[in-house]
């Protein structure tokens, strides 16, 4: 199992070295700064869209919500609007809670055995860590992405400025440290540590589980390096990114630190990797039939597009099999 994270670690380090050497030694700024980002973007957009379209085109033959709350039945029984939604409104509520608050993950508990009262007891302890790491990780990622819009817009929209101000509220160092970057790095690291330290989790983990975490850790580290240690020329970076955004790409004169190109390369790899990986959960979570369907299948008929006729055993065949016995037992029959 060590191989799984070793492969991923080697891959990420190698990607970092390739891009660093590519720029610092071989001077391939154009390749890493323009070509690769564009290719990555195309792969991402086309790949992501085709996955969603493929999922969307696949039928949902049955309405199979996992009901986590009281169904709507009798008027005086309080029905659980979100955990057993009956209407589209309820489904939207359930999905919003799931996607914005990671509600199912919040329910997580850990099983354990303890001696007590003269017998081995099984207990279930609510554990918040996975939920906490995950939600902080995702929101930090979101804030980081939105914050980066300032590199691709001119003038920078007010909400991006506002978010950056709030994100930098700690006012540590100059330029000010962004909370989101630190949280992102910390949470990705904790998720990684968790994956390696918990035996069950380590046992189930694949290289594909370590790779994106390590890549994101790489992105966060290079980002923080650029802002606080290497101090890249932000003006030059914006010149390049605006060029990309306006489809008039050029490499700024005077150059940018190679660390920037490593950062950009990691981001490009991540983008291109998404459609082929478990990171597609960002799209899949919207389409899961156990969550996004109302629990009203007895009231409103769900149609299966591929429903086909099947061979059944009809009453007539049944009566033919048992007619004499039925008559003898006084059971009514269709044919005497």
């Amino acid at each position, binding site marked *: 199992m060590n191989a799984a994270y070793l492969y991923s670690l080697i891959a990420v380090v190698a990607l970092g070295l390739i891009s660093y050497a590519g720029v610092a030694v071989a001077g391939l700024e154009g390749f890493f700064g323009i070509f690769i980002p564009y290719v990555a973007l195309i792969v991402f957009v086309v790949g992501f869209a085709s*996955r969603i379209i493929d999922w969307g085109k*696949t039928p*949902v033959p049955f*309405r*199979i919500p*996992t*009901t*986590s*709350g*009281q*169904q*709507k*039945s*009798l008027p005086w*029984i309080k029905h659980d609007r979100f*955990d057993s939604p009956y209407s589209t409104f309820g489904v939207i509520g359930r999905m919003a809670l799931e996607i914005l608050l*990671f509600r*199912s993950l919040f329910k*997580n508990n850990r*099983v354990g055995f303890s001696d007590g009262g003269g*017998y*081995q007891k*099984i207990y*279930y302890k609510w554990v918040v860590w*996975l939920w906490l790491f*995950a939600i902080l990780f995702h929101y930090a990622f979101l804030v980081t992405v939105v914050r980066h819009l300032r590199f691709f817009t001119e003038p920078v929209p007010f909400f991006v400025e506002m978010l950056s101000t709030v994100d930098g509220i700690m006012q540590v160092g100059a330029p000010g440290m962004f909370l989101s970057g630190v949280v992102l790095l910390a949470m990705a690291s904790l998720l990684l540590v968790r994956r390696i330290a918990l*035996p*069950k989790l380590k046992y*189930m983990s*694949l*290289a*594909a589980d370590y790779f994106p975490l390590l890549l994101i850790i790489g992105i966060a580290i290079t980002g923080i390096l650029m802002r606080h240690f290497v101090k890249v020329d932000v003006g030059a970076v914006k010149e390049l990114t605006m060029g990309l955004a306006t489809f008039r790409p050029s490499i700024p004169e005077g150059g940018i630190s190679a660390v920037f190109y490593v950062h950009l390369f990691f981001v490009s790899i991540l983008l291109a990797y998404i459609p*082929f990986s*478990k990171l597609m*959960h960002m799209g*899949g*979570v919207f*389409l*899961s*039939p156990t*969550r996004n369907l109302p629990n009203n299948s*007895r*009231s*409103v*008929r*769900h149609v*299966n597009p591929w429903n086909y006729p*099947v*061979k*059944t*055993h*009809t*009453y007539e065949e049944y009566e033919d*099999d*048992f007619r004499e016995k*039925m008559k*003898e*037992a006084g*059971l*009514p029959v269709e044919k005497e």
Partner: protein
Amino acid sequence: MVDTPKPEELIKNIDHTPPETPWEETVPDISPGNFCYPTKKKNLEYLSMPTTTVDEWSPADEEWPLPDNWQQIVHDGFKDLLGKYRSLKIFMDTCVRCGACADKCHFFIGTGDPKNMPVLRAELLRSVYRNDFTRVGKILKKIAGARPLTKEVIKEWFTYFYQCTECRRCSVYCPYGIDTAEVTMMARELLSLLGLNINWILEPAANCFRTGNHLGIQPHAFKEMIEFFCDDIEEITGKKIEPSFNRKGAEILFITPSGDAFADPGTYAMMGYIMLFEHIGLDYTLSTYASEGGNFGLFTSSEMMKRLNAKMYAEAKRLGVKWILGGECGHMWRVIHQYMDTMNGPVDFGEVPVNPITGTRFDNALSTRMVHITEFTADLIRHNKLKLDPGRNDMYKVTYHDSCNPARAMGLFDEPRHVLKAVCNQFYEMPENTIREQTFCCGSGSGLNTEEIMELRLRGGLPRANAVRYVHEKFGVNMLSCVCAIDRAALPPLMEYWVPEVDVCGVHELVGNALVMDGEIERTTNLRFEPLTDETEVEADV
């Protein structure tokens, strides 16, 4: 159960530490006791399903009797399912292996076998999916978690997809709602393309196809059994009841699992239904043709589920009833609630179900025309239509086991509780992580209620049994009620092993006990012919 260790030893030796070897390289233990017997060929033939190449074989055999092109069959079948079910695609693609599901499975808790973690159970299928259907898997192979479909993989599937009871508990905790029941259903469907099915599922399915019920009870015998219960009811209550069979023009068709006609304690629930219907003067009939509520097709393939389920609507139409009332059963209600109308509807008989006694219109069953018995009885109780003497159940301290399917595939939680609280004085809930949507399986659902894997079943049922033990020690609970026929067959041996002081009953057995019928004689026993305790009378006197 000869080789089964003592309960204390068994629980102490459960080890949740994963083994040294990676799961991909760990060979499953396919020795007797760890697998369900494969089906007899006659059942496959009767149901026109694919068969194995030899008649008699055992999973313990080195070489399995697969057709030459078995790989192609499974690959094509997999492709077909991926084209039919968005659920399968999403569940194959989105898992991030966060581990939230790992210790939610009763089989993992009871065995410690990592392949019983829902995530790895799905990986058994997912690894082949990656290999056969994804680009990354085709290029990176093992690094991407892909592995080719080999005979060893088929053996592993047979072992572990018949070690999942399709209870859906893991899907409650999954951030993407990945439902292992769905994954298991797909895997079993693939296995059945090779004729790999278990006898405990296929024999009932074949029986049901022919005789109308899993147990193969023929029409005259079904009638006799019900009449036998009526004799018992007469002895206990003094009331002579003569239910009708296959009667055209009845208002309601009542369908319950055949287990309720066959074995204790389901039979007491059956007596409860009959007494209730008699008491309220319900215009209903039983059918010998649709004499099975359960549907072992659900555990085989969607096609088999549809073929067996078709009887319900066909019989309702033939008899000309207005609507169908369904008895206490778990997976039966998954089929009725989530599949029946889609598969065999839209209905062409009857009208929207209305309780003829209370006038309540069951709008939640507008389209299927089928109502759950606890919805029906709860409505009667709410409208004070039943005279109840809960004191007659005072010998019982009752708890309630939410059966998996009514819980997580229907949302039936408060209806049975409303009934229970009305018919017994002493009702205690098990701990919250073990009831309602978090309920634990009996360990024998989805067709695994078979003797040859008894130890596995006892392990799978451990979390449920342990929660029962908790309320037994704390409150003196001695009766585990449920609304599932498989529970009523599986929980008694589970209790006997883990908490022998606790007995099992259907909710409507307790209804039957408490129900004060018009013109009944003074009862001296409950439906089990156990004397109503003196204690009850003393308390009543005070």
